[in-house]
């Protein structure tokens, strides 16, 4: 406790009132109060303004996408836009149907998630329940490094290393296809799945595990029948976040998915996702032109998809937090 008092006397009072001040005497403190009030009010105003900025920004993104994207529907009716299978922006007359991009996005995301979930949850279970603290720290550091690798570098790696491999294994004409993109994406969504699932597993109260051990269950039986079921909602939130990441990823799919504009039937065909369609098309689109509007409308679809995925994940996480809150 004396240390705390020293801290107040030596650090806090000089900081607040100036080094040589006698401002702790009431008279001096009161003299400054009027000026403080004014400064304080303006800074508090600034603070609450910054607080609302997140809402303003989110609404701003939505309004902008609506403003630039909706006009396309006066050229292409919504039905044709959403379910049209042909995207020919520069033919005469141009047609805009997002189905090829939508199918590609769903296909790549589904494969990436199917690959990443068992591996990610397995890794999380290992880290939370099996690994020694030292191994755990090391693996977590590497997972963080993996999360830090920029998506363009992952795309480059897919281009140089993975696509020749995929090409020779499946005897394809080109290794730049949906499958290559999906494998790279699964690697990129692993970090978030691992970290969030591990947090969920570690949040399971130790009484649950102790009860299971007391009944004679082995460690694995406890993980399988107690820990994972108890953490299931957190794990599903982790999966949702991984899905959101995969849907929104741009550079990797732009570089390795192949870029074909037809609806893909097999994962081994070249394809273009919604994100890649925007990234590759926006540079050539005339500002305010039809293609420009159509790409903003694609952005709007992406925005709505990722937003709903994230909201669901957030809901699940909140519920999980309340479940074990004491």
């Amino acid at each position, binding site marked *: 406790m004396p240390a705390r008092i020293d801290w107040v006397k030596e650090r806090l009072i000089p900081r607040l009132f100036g080094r040589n001040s006698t401002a702790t005497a009431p008279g001096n403190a009161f003299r400054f109060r009027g000026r403080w009030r004014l400064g304080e009010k303006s800074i508090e105003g600034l603070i609450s303004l*910054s607080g609302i900025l997140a809402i303003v920004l989110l609404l701003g993104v939505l309004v902008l996408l609506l403003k630039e994207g909706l006009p396309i529907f006066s050229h292409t009716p919504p039905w044709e836009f959403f379910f049209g299978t042909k995207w020919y922006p520069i033919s005469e007359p141009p047609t805009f149907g997002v189905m090829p991009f939508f199918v590609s996005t769903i296909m790549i995301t589904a494969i990436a998630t199917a690959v990443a979930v068992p591996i990610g949850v397995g890794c999380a279970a290992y880290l939370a329940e099996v690994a020694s603290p030292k191994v755990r720290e090391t693996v977590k550091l590497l997972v963080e490094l993996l999360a830090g690798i*920029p998506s363009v570098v992952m795309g480059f790696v897919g281009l140089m290393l993975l696509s020749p491999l995929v090409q020779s294994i499946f005897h394809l004409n080109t290794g730049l296809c949906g499958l290559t993109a999906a494998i790279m994406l699964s690697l990129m969504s692993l970090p978030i799945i691992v970290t969030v699932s591990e947090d969920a597993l570690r949040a399971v109260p130790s009484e649950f595990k102790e009860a299971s051990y007391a009944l004679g269950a082995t460690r694995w039986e406890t993980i399988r029948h107690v820990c994972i079921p108890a953490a299931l909602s957190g794990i599903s939130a982790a999966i949702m976040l991984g899905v959101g990441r995969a849907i929104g990823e741009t550079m990797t799919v732009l570089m390795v998915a192949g870029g074909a504009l037809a609806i893909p039937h097999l994962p081994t065909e070249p394809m273009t996702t919604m994100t890649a369609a925007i990234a590759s098309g926006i540079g050539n689109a005339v500002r305010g032109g039809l293609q420009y509007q159509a790409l903003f409308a694609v952005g709007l679809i992406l925005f709505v998809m990722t937003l709903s995925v994230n909201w669901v994940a957030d809901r699940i996480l909140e519920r999980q937090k309340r479940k074990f809150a004491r």
Partner: protein
Amino acid sequence: MKVKARSTRRLSQRTAFALLTLATAIVVIPALLIILYIIVHGVSAIDWGFLTQSPSQAGKSGGIFPAIVGTFYLMLGTAIFSLPIGVLAAIHLTEYAKDNRLTRLINLAIISLAGVPSIVFGLFGLGVFVMTMHLGLSLRAASLTLASQALAMVITTSREAILAVPREYREASLAIGATKWQTVRHVVLPQASSGIITGAVLAMSRAAGETAPILVVGAAFIVPGLPNSPFDQFMALPYHLYTVAAQVPGMPKSMMWGVALVLLAVVLSFDIVAAIIRSKARQRK
């Protein structure tokens, strides 16, 4: 319920743990492999000239100095635009906001912003900063775009750092007559500074690697000379890597690996700096 034999249960545990270890290996090994592979291939491409010269022969030879400088400007710009507002917003949420509907909306907005794809932020930047505010395809517009994207992350990390400051510190300060803002300014912020700086460094590292937004708002493949002001077009490492690797045919492989290594080194070194600041702060406590 039929009880299985002990040996079967032990065997199944051993198999299961082997599978879990395998899963961990599948996460860890590609990460190591990618980083090592880029280092091994990139090192031979990098020399002093590569780091300090401008590109020549349409980017096929020469160095990438302007791209390195452009990336550092972008990181700086992102921090300048996102850090003050992000920290103020975090202060609002932790110190001032009441638990009401508005606060819940703000939190929801932050979570949503964190999930918006980077390419959509690119469209936002193009529509707002380039078109509506007429900032042009410039360093300034790109920094603002990246800062909009970084905001959610800066708020979240700063909020966590501020929440970790013990309540007694605030009470001590208020007890000797400091106002709320003085308490925040002289007590809470200094205590939370290492956490806030960690978040800022991570946001900058993210900005350095981000490609899709600057692809939309105006990075250029080759710009003669360095950007002299925030109004100029610029080169940046991630966009340069995308162009040399996937856009321009006939690029020498060593050029690609070199750019990839420099980019990876910039991004990961910032990540490591953040990790060091964090662990130092943890030790002090």
